């Protein structure tokens, strides 16, 4: 906007702000490598790094199971989102058919449905189906979401009709046009969708914590949360510092995958975040 050169004060302010945002992450990760006792006795120092907290955490916490379950949910739910949402978006963007406006209206309406309202009804449905503590309960609800359809519709609408007609002239079937013409063109949008879906599924907590209560199906976030609750529940526990060390080790390891993806693919992340704001 203003073409004047930014002053020193602006850089100082931005740097302070950036440090404030990054410090809690840095503190958690660096503390997780400290001898547990020092987290309490000298919380701001950085001592000789040790893996003790990680060793103890891996022994005490089924974090591997958590990672495996999250990976499974992410793979299936992600694949469904990446296939069905652009497909529906394509139909809404490039076809005219009776009832289209009504159907798209329903998609838009579900965008406004707060997720929380569905938690209790869904839980009841899962128990009626005998699906509590199953992968299908973690995966199916919300696996084809309205927002992604809306977003993909916007992206696909920008493709020139001539391109699609050319595919039709070449004799491609309706699905062939989607797979061979539409998908390659919207690759950047698909990348942003993939990154955002990964973040949402990886961090999802409310539904997994309600739908699953046995250790073998818990996702990573649920494993983490139970860990925290065990600690808050045992405040007079014997070795307070050791528990904190494990807590920070588990938290740090859980943060890592998304932070790495984010740093590598930040452009797609930001596009994904902004895609939401266009509907405002």
């Amino acid at each position, binding site marked *: 906007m203003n073409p004047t050169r930014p002053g020193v004060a602006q850089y100082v302010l931005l740097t302070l702000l950036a440090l404030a945002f990054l410090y809690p992450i840095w503190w958690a990760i660096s503390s997780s490598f400290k001898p547990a006792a020092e987290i309490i006795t000298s919380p701001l120092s950085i001592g000789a790094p040790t893996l003790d907290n990680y060793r103890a955490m891996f022994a005490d916490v089924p974090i591997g199971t958590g990672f495996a379950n999250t990976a499974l949910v992410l793979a299936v739910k992600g694949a469904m989102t990446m296939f069905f949402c652009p497909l529906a978006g394509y139909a809404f963007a490039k076809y005219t058919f009776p009832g289209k406006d009504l159907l798209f209206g329903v998609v838009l309406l579900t965008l406004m449905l707060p997720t929380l309202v569905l938690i209790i009804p869904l839980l009841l*449905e899962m128990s009626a189906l005998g699906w509590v503590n199953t992968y299908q309960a973690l995966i199916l609800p919300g696996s084809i979401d309205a927002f992604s359809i809306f977003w993909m519709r916007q992206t696909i609408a920008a493709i020139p009709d001539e391109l699609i007609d050319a595919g039709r002239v070449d004799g491609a079937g309706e699905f062939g046009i989607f797979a061979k013409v539409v998908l390659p063109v919207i690759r950047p949008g698909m990348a942003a969708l993939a990154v955002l879906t990964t973040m949402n599924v990886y961090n999802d907590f409310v539904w997994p914590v309600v739908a699953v209560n046995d250790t073998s199906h818990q996702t990573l976030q649920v494993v983490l949360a139970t860990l925290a609750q065990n600690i808050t529940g045992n405040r007079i526990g014997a070795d307070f510092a050791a528990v904190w060390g494990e*807590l920070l080790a588990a938290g740090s390891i859980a943060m890592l995958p998304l932070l790495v993806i984010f740093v590598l693919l930040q452009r797609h992340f930001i596009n994904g975040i902004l895609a939401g704001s266009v509907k405002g």
Partner: protein
Amino acid sequence: MRSVRLTPYLFVAPFFVVFAAFGIYPLIYALQLSFMRWRGAGAAHWVGADNYLYLLTSPEFWASLGNSAVMWLLIVPIQVVAGLGGAVLLANARLRLRGLYRVAFIAPFVTPLVAMAQVWIVVFDQDHGPVNYLLNLAGLPDVGWLTSTVWAKPTLALLFLWKTTGFAIIILLAGLQAVPGGVYEAAALDGASRWRQFWSITVPLVRRSMAFLVVVQTLAVFQMFAEPFVVTEGGPYGSTTTAGLYLYEHITASDLGTGAANSFLLVLLVFGLSLGAVRLLRPKDEVS
């Protein structure tokens, strides 16, 4: 040609199948259940509007809404101001290192909420946490960040703000960058001060982004669940039992009829608040 006419329906069908099975069906079931007394086992009894009346006359229900309202006040105004400030700082075309600052601001948004909620437990612990350690070094007494009814809400609000203000900055920055630079030059030529430019050009032009931000965050604050669930378990003395957490407590109490009624009351409230926010923040010259 018949297949072509069927095609679009086939393409959109998967969404509607999933939505019917895991959206419409449970909603209708829940609506019915909200008029029944059912404890998760045994027979359900029709009780009319009793669940709704019970909630509307229950101090706990109103306290949960009150807690969420306070959270909203602690979060949304601060976030709009801080987000706009951060966006204005980043918007200068001649700023160096913008990419790096942007990464720093959004990094918290990418971290898992549950993991950071645990970090909050440690950082704000009354007896051994680093924040009180620093206060003690400065000769100040301990603060019960998570154990006092005064401080627990602001401490949770800080977690929310820390995690999502980068999101606010990105949204508002996009709004700002849509403002053509020439507008400011013209205003500067007309002798408008920087402050005046900010209020007369910047704010009106980012109204749309601001409205989006306020609606999204209002929805998020009134559904806030993981922060109090993990960090404070709704305490101390229920002071962080948000509307979202209170809803969950009906599940643990196996009072599902009341829980269903509570869900619908919360939806009505959130809908009303979003509509109000959109109306208030809508640019004046727009109809849609």
